[in-house]
């Protein structure tokens, strides 16, 4: 019998085959249907297999070694609960993105720049998750990075996209370098690159610490941890929208997978301080990410920044899980890890949904700038409905799914006073505050995203002509919206599905949830905490309908349309509405002066002058200016100086070579 791993590898090969096919046919009219149809089928099958593997017994699946790659190693592939879960995330995302692409792809001006790389990107992500040795892992990782880079560069003639691609390439190379060094440390002096060998080896404390830091740099830069996030808000929005959805909703999760695989699986017992580091970075990322998103007026960049926030939320839970694991508190660690993985799944749902919605708006109006949108709820009722579902879910509001994972994270935080180390005692409540702050700011951010884009009056002519998008795109978005609601009202199902993963990584699991009466979720005991999304949903639905029914039946259902009241001061032009920038003004004044050194400058003309008054807002990207500008400055300076070496005479070159040789020999001679 062929093992499931072989079957999954055939799937990845089928993706690659589709990519080859796409190269051949991409200029034909039917290519879009063919390629997205194929990826839809393959991803759906892979999703089904992965789900079966996760709910079945992943431990019993035999690994596969292919005679590829380095000759003395071969390529190892294996499936366990962790990789099965991430395969579910990857292929669910791939399925809906392909479905969306079936319709959206027809609007693509240059399909031959997208079609070949889309299946290749999916293949890369699947292979990263399946890889069982460092070489295959890194190769697939690079393949995934390069395929997504090609997709980012699909519209390379658009302004800023080349810069986005360049920064992405530099950051991706840096990340892979960090991963390479991390695996090098783990492999030890005898160079065993299989994960099995690394798991069995006991790295020294120094090596484990260095590997953790390198993983934070490598996987963190791919996931978008502050301050390594700079490429993400440039690159994710630059790609076509269904690819943005995959990059934000799925590829960042593959990075989380890489971190989990090495830190929770290969490194062995964590040190307690690793929890502090991860918690700190997670909290910082969550708050800064969402503050950046609030300042943004480009819809897709706003979503990309919000991805950074969600990665922060995931890493906070991971940090808690590390801290609990280090202190031998397995049930609390399982709770925190479940919260993290649940959020991974949730974020892949609602971020894909929101990027699809942004793509629909982009198709309908040609605009990403929220200041030119508005009032789309009248022109695109279905898109606006699902986008609203996405906004409510990502804002962590009950009864949708985002709230459940956040709730689990809070429950995990409440377990932490028993941690013995003072560093953790002080860090955890502070991070809890940051998590709450980021949740509240996320709600503010998505009130802005939905309110400015879909509500109010149209701010440009293009919006007034907007049409609802095609049925494939709508089907993809409605599927995700339904999943958001389902995961919100039946969280027990997801939590139980995650139990094999926590069992394999922590050795413990949350109690069985589906057996609870009324399908509540109860992390520890009902007298301590419980939440029932289903009943909350039903109660709200019943009381809202009841109120509406009673009033319409017994009081009044008369309705008259009239002009807006506006306190008797109607705004004549839609330009007088609140905009994305003005909506963020109160929050900018509260948080922005500190986080972005934001300044408002008012230029008032003297009395009697006819010049207009101007208000300018100045915002600094503090992370870029503190960390990256010095580096780019130094690189620029060095290249400037080294540039002279290009124009020397042959004698000088020979002298340089001679001096270099002498120095080298001297060093060798003096080496102890």
């Amino acid at each position: 019998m062929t093992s499931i791993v072989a079957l999954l590898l055939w799937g990845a090969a089928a993706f690659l085959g589709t990519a080859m096919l796409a190269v051949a046919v991409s200029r034909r009219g039917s290519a879009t249907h063919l390629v997205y149809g194929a990826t839809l089928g393959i991803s759906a099958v892979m999703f089904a297999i992965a789900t079966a593997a996760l709910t079945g017994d992943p431990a019993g699946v035999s690994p596969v070694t292919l005679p590829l790659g380095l000759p003395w190693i071969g390529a190892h592939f294996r499936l366990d609960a962790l990789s099965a879960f991430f395969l579910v995330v990857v292929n669910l995302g791939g399925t809906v993105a392909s479905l969306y692409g079936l319709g959206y792809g027809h609007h693509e001006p240059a399909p031959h720049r997208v079609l070949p790389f889309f299946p290749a990107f999916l293949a890369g992500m699947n292979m990263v998750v399946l890889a069982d040795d460092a070489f295959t892992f890194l190769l697939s990782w690079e393949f995934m990075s390069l395929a997504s880079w090609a997709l980012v560069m699909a519209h390379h003639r658009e302004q800023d996209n080349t810069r986005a691609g360049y920064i992405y390439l530099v950051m991706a190379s840096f990340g892979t370098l960090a991963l390479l060094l991390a695996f090098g440390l783990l492999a030890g002096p005898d160079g065993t690159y299989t994960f099995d060998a690394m798991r069995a080896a006991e790295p020294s404390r120094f090596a484990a610490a260095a590997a953790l830091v390198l993983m934070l740099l490598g996987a963190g830069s791919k996931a978008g941890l502050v301050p390594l996030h700079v490429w993400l808000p440039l690159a994710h929005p630059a790609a076509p929208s269904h690819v943005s959805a995959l990059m934000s909703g799925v590829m960042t999760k593959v990075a989380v997978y890489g971190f989990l695989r090495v830190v929770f699986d290969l490194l062995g017992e964590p040190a307690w301080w690793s929890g502090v580091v991860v918690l700190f970075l997670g909290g910082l990322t969550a708050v800064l990410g969402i503050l950046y998103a609030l300042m943004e007026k480009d819809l897709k960049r706003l979503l990309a920044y919000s991805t950074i926030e969600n990665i922060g939320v995931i890493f906070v839970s991971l940090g808690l899980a590390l801290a609990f694991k280090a202190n031998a508190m397995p049930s609390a660690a399982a709770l925190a890890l479940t919260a993290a993985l649940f959020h991974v799944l949730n974020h892949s749902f609602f971020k894909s949904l929101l990027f699809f919605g942004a793509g629909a708006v982009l198709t309908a109006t040609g605009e990403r700038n929220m200041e030119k949108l508005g009032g789309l709820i009248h022109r695109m009722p279905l898109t606006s409905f699902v986008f609203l579902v996405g906004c409510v879910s990502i804002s962590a509001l009950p009864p949708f799914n985002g709230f459940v994972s956040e709730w689990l994270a809070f429950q995990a935080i409440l377990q932490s006073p028993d941690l013995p180390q003072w560093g953790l005692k002080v860090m955890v409540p502070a991070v809890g505050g940051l998590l709450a702050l980021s949740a509240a700011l996320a709600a503010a951010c998505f009130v802005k995203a939905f309110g400015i884009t879909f509500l109010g009056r149209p701010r440009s002519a293009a919006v007034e002509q907007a049409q609802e998008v095609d049925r494939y795109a709508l089907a993809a978005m409605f599927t995700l919206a339904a999943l958001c609601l389902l995961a919100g009202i039946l969280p027990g199902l997801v939590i139980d599905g995650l139990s094999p993963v926590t069992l394999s990584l922590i050795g413990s699991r949350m109690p069985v949830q589906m057996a609870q009466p009324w399908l509540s979720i109860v992390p520890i005991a009902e007298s301590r905490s419980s939440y029932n999304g289903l009943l909350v949903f039903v109660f709200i639905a019943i009381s809202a309908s009841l109120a509406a029914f009673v009033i319409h039946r017994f009081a009044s259902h008369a309705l008259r349309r009239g002009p807006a009241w506006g306190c008797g001061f109607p705004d004549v032009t839609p330009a007088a509405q609140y905009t994305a920038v003005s909506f963020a003004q109160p929050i900018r004044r509260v948080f922005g002066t500190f986080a972005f050194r934001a300044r408002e400058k008012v230029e008032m003309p003297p009395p009697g002058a006819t010049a207009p008054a101007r208000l300018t807002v100045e915002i600094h990207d503090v992370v870029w200016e503190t960390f990256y500008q010095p580096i780019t400055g130094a690189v620029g300076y060095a290249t400037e100086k080294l540039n002279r070496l290009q124009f020397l005479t042959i004698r000088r070159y020979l002298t340089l070579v001679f001096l270099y040789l002498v120095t080298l020999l001297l060093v060798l001679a003096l080496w102890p």
Partner: protein
Amino acid sequence: MALIAELAVQGAQMMLVLLLAPLLTGFVRKVKARLLRRQGPSLIQPYRDLLRLMRKEVVLAGNASWLFRVIPYLIFAATWVAAALIPTFATGLTFSWTADLIAIVALLGSARFFLALAGMDVGTSFGGIGASREVMIASLAEPAMLLIVFSLALVAGATQLSTVAAFMGSPEVGLRVSLGMSLIALVMVALAENARIPVDNPSTHLELTMVHEAMVLEYSGRHLAMIEFAAFLKLLLYVSLISCVFIPWGLVTARSGPGAYALGVAVYIGKLALSGILLAVFETAIAKMRVFRVPDFLGAALMLALLGTLLLFVSRSL
């Protein structure tokens, strides 16, 4: 039979909060008027207002969307469900495990999310100004509230309100500094959340610093009635929350006869009256602050709550 009785008590609680909410607001208004040596409107004026609004026709702005018409019912429902989940006269009701304190806070967050959207739907500047200020206030009030929840949960070992109330009523609580901080922070958050003085003024219109009223400016008729009703319920909710956690005496804890429940309801009404008087006195004694002073006010609440939580974390090992 027992199940029916329990469901009846749960239903009674839902109707009780619905019936008492306008009365509490009317009572606060009356006390404030008396403190200013005015006669003040009658105690049942809020009920009359609601009935009048419900009977009137709705005048809807020309470009208002379907969302604008659905939101009042959603806000009302979310607030009502949240208010019904707080122990008022009895703990451990049939559905009290549906949502713990974190979920109740988040339910109010849902209501606020939709209210802010409603403010932006018609596309007037007043709606925008209200919505943007509301989310700014919420971005500080919500974390403060969650940190207060953390403190309570750490003291009582649960986020379940019934358990917290039962613990706070037991003699093992004692006097704790962090609980005092939580109480002060909770009162500050409650003032901000209910748009009371000094954060917002519930009885003015057309004031440049207004927040809540600016968002609901375009609402009329039954829609406005629903939103007003939700505001009444929210005030009752916060008063019930503070009294059930910090003055938990007189709560019916075990299953008992109608007499005990009647006594519990009477005690609850007494607590509401006391809180109403305190609120009215406080509001009369203090002036409203500028809108950009509100972050300082709420920042203080946030810091107090964080300090309380930190103290609990740190004192666990002492």
